[in-house]
């Protein structure tokens, strides 16, 4: 079978698996969530009827009222008494919003209401998203040397592990550190600060945020009367940025490890770009370490060797 043919079959296989994965997820979500939703629906209906019975409100004016309230809710405006104090668009919140826009997290708890705001968001994101990706990749490139090459050569020399084992051990430790430092610890902090969040909710929030999915069902700093609200929001921003960087780093390290172990060739996935310009196994050759570090950090930011966000590598 020619390799061209083979790669088409592989692609079809990937796509079919992808579709099957989505359908599987759909089935599980549907089974878990639907009964809960049905029960909530019934409870709400009952509540509404009770409300109508007790009060002198007629059905149409209630419908109008509900429509307005729901619309306001969508934009983050609530008519409950204590939430009218803080605005959704003071400087810290706007900064938070700009950050979620530019990192593509996009919670949606506040969205631009005015038409100019919407148009501005489009152009702002058009420029800001690639800019963010550039900054993140630049940081990760420099961090890689610190976090990956150094420890691996140390493993090789001091402990005497062979290259494959060294990379695997290093990756496992890196993963553990990242999970502890960027999921568990922040989750503890969040569950302490936000009183309605449990620890599980907080970990769910950290995960959904750091993957830039950003559902928006949990957003920190939204409860009314939050102390030090601006400082809190800004530190969440910093957490988001650094966390994204670490996720990128882990992904990169995993990619290189998979490369070395031959997994990428097996699945015919793209190899790490840097291998083309440098040695085949840059993280293994202890002797060439310094030279590579100097070269790599002096190299101007090559767009070709970057991982852009939604492609692994070219």
């Amino acid at each position: 079978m020619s390799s061209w043919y083979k790669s088409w079959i592989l692609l079809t296989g990937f796509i079919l698996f992808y579709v099957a994965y989505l359908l599987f997820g759909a089935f599980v979500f549907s089974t878990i969530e639907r009964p809960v939703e049905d029960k909530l629906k019934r409870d709400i209906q009952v509540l509404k009827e009770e409300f109508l019975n007790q009060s002198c409100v007629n059905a149409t004016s209630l419908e109008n009222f509900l429509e307005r309230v729901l619309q306001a809710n969508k934009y983050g405006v609530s008519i409950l008494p204590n939430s009218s104090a803080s605005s959704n668009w003071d400087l810290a919140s706007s900064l938070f919003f700009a950050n979620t826009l530019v990192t593509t997290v996009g919670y949606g708890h506040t969205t631009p209401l005015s038409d100019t705001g919407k148009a501005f968001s489009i152009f702002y994101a058009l420029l800001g998203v690639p800019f963010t990706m550039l900054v993140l990749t630049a940081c990760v490139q420099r961090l890689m040397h610190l976090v990956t090459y150094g420890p691996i050569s140390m493993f090789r020399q001091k402990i005497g592990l062979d290259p494959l084992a060294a990379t695997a051990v290093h990756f496992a430790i890196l993963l553990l550190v990242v999970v502890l430092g960027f999921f568990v610890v922040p989750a503890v902090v969040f569950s302490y600060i936000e009183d309605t969040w449990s620890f599980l909710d907080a970990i769910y929030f950290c995960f959904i945020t750091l993957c830039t999915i950003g559902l928006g069902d949990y957003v920190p700093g939204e409860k009314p009367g939050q102390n030090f609200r601006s400082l809190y929001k800004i530190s969440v921003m910093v957490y988001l940025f650094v966390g994204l960087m670490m996720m990128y780093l882990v992904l990169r390290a995993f990619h290189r490890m998979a490369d070395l172990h031959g997994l990428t060739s097996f699945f015919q996935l793209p190899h790490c770009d840097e291998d083309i310009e440098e040695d085949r196994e840059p993280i293994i050759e202890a002797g060439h370490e310094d030279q590579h570090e100097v070269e790599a950090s002096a190299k101007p930011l090559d767009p070709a060797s970057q991982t852009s966000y939604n492609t692994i590598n070219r």
Partner: protein
Amino acid sequence: MALLALAHFMYQMVGATIFQMLEKEAEDHNHFQLEKLHFLANCTCLDGLHMERFVQVIRDSSKVGLSLKGNQTMDSFWKFTSSAVFAATVVTTIGYGNMSPSTTAGQIFCVFFALFGIPLNMVVLNRVGKYMLAIERNACDFIQGKTNHRKLTRFMIHLLSYLSGTALFFVMPMVVFKQQEGWSYSQAIYYCFISLSTIGFGDYVADSNPDKYYPEWYSILMASWIFFGLAWLALVINHTGEILERLNTHLKHWWSPEEPSNAGPVDEVKEPPVDG
């Protein structure tokens, strides 16, 4: 490096101040408070406390995506097709948020589902993007074989692919959404952009208005639009990277023409063989 980080931070600060200026006026707390008082004044039997509780319930239910309006004969949010759409928005990291798992089991499953789904999605999109690129390259070579203007054909092909991509993934969906969802053109294009960039606010979501009737092909069309649109966007980003790199080498050539060795290794990388 530090300069880059500083510039990035300044960019966000500038954005923040502009957003604040634009949005502060549109957000009108007082208006809603007046409405509420008006409503209360009309209905004398209603006391404030009871209504606050009612509104809290409305709020909580709208967070999980339920609407209290009208009769409750609307379809469940978590029926199979909409759960599939939700799974797709998780895996592509769009994450609208108009529906989100409210049970703990659902949340835990969501985390693991995304853990495997997101890399899978990135791999598939990457491959599809590469194939789109290969098609474009083949077309380029074919036409270059016919004419002699190498750079011109290349430029024209790139331009054509950019334009057709924009038309296919922005302009056409804009028209379809205006017709099916009843949004204005600007809202539709705002929605297209926010979805394809995977920001996914969720203030506008196609195929989820309970008051509208959608044709059967609508959700499939939406899903393919998102899939191919994302692949095309990945392609465009890669392309832009390529172009920037070429620009970089051209500038280096022009800046220091007596150092041809600089361009050497980069030239070899410029057109990596597409895995055939």
